[in-house]
């Protein structure tokens, strides 16, 4: 319902986010009914392809939002990458079997196999707090990063935002990364994921 209201407001795109308390704990939105593009979270290839099948136009790996700890974002992106690598060399029968294992549509798996990546734009999110975090995810092959609290809970949000933007562009240039990382003020204090109660982890919302 909120998505319909946002579309009526002329919003540019909608994040079907696990960070917001879901009104329906079982079903995701049928995104084919909308003209506005959706971005959805995933922890692995199967989850990404289920969302794309529902109509997601973009994917972001979930990470663990609000922690300032990038380890989950890295885990999820690596899971997507290894899921795609596993497809290379599979024949159609093997793809069908893999589709069953992943709970994902065969035709989307075939698309991934053909292009060697997700068939849509793939962002990383959840825990990115430094220019190095952003560059690390870019080196893992994401198309861009989403950063929220990593910027807004830091000591100098404007400076940090600019540094993370530069790090996303110059992700393969450690010399430039070192330069933009200088004098950024206090970072957001990272939270160790194992200290969070399991039932409070946001990434486990959705399937």
């Amino acid at each position, binding site marked *: 319902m909120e998505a319909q209201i946002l*579309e009526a407001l*002329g919003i540019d795109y909608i994040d079907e986010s696990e960070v917001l308390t879901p009104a329906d704990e079982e079903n995701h939105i049928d995104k084919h009914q909308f003209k506005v*593009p959706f971005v959805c979270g995933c922890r692995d290839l199967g989850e990404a392809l289920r969302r794309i099948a529902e109509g997601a136009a973009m994917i972001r790996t979930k990470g663990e939002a609000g922690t300032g700890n990038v380890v989950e974002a890295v885990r999820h992106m690596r899971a997507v990458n290894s899921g795609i690598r596993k497809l290379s060399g599979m024949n159609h029968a093997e793809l069908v079997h893999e589709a069953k294992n992943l709970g994902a549509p065969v035709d989307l798996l075939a698309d991934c196999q053909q292009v060697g990546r997700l068939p849509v734009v793939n962002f990383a999110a959840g825990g990115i707090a430094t220019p190095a975090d952003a560059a690390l995810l870019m080196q893992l092959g994401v198309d861009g990063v989403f950063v929220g609290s990593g910027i807004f809970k830091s000591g100098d949000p404007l400076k940090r935002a600019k540094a993370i933007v530069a790090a996303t*562009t110059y992700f393969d240039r450690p010399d430039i990364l070192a330069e933009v990382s200088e004098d950024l003020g206090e970072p957001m204090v990272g939270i160790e994921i194992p200290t969070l109660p399991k039932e409070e982890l946001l990434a486990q919302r959705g399937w």
Partner: protein
Amino acid sequence: MRAFEAAGARTRLVRLKEDLEDLEGLVIPGGESTTMTMLMERMGLYDAVADALHSGLPALGTCAGMILLAERVSDGIDGQQGLGVLDIAVRRNAYGRQLESFEAELELNGDGASFPGVFIRAPIVEDVGSTEVIARHDGRPVGVRKGRTMALAFHPELSGDLRLHREFLRLVRS
């Protein structure tokens, strides 16, 4: 880059001014014109690109790239100016928001040939100045050329049709 490689060119990403050395042509792609301008200024690339283009380096600008090549920009951030390579006036996001993005058949070169145009929050050309119009949508100019510089309001790389990329390569070699 994939479109140009498919059209037979060798490509290189330009992110620093050193990357401009020995280029035969520069493509300024779509994106977001104010962000692109700020990033270019920050890394000293803006002045280097301006110098290269004003010294005659052939250029193709698409969508936000068209805005960067323009002389006058409306609905930009305060003080936003283009590189002024083409004496055109453009208006940012003139078709509206993401929901108003669209695909439409374009008329090329006034000779009746059509081209699949993909418009994503595209600019409009309000004044074509001394440029030649090479593409129109509903009679409105959406592609212009002057000398060896082309600017398109749409995204030819998303259409799978390489004619305009080949045309730019022809201009570069001419």
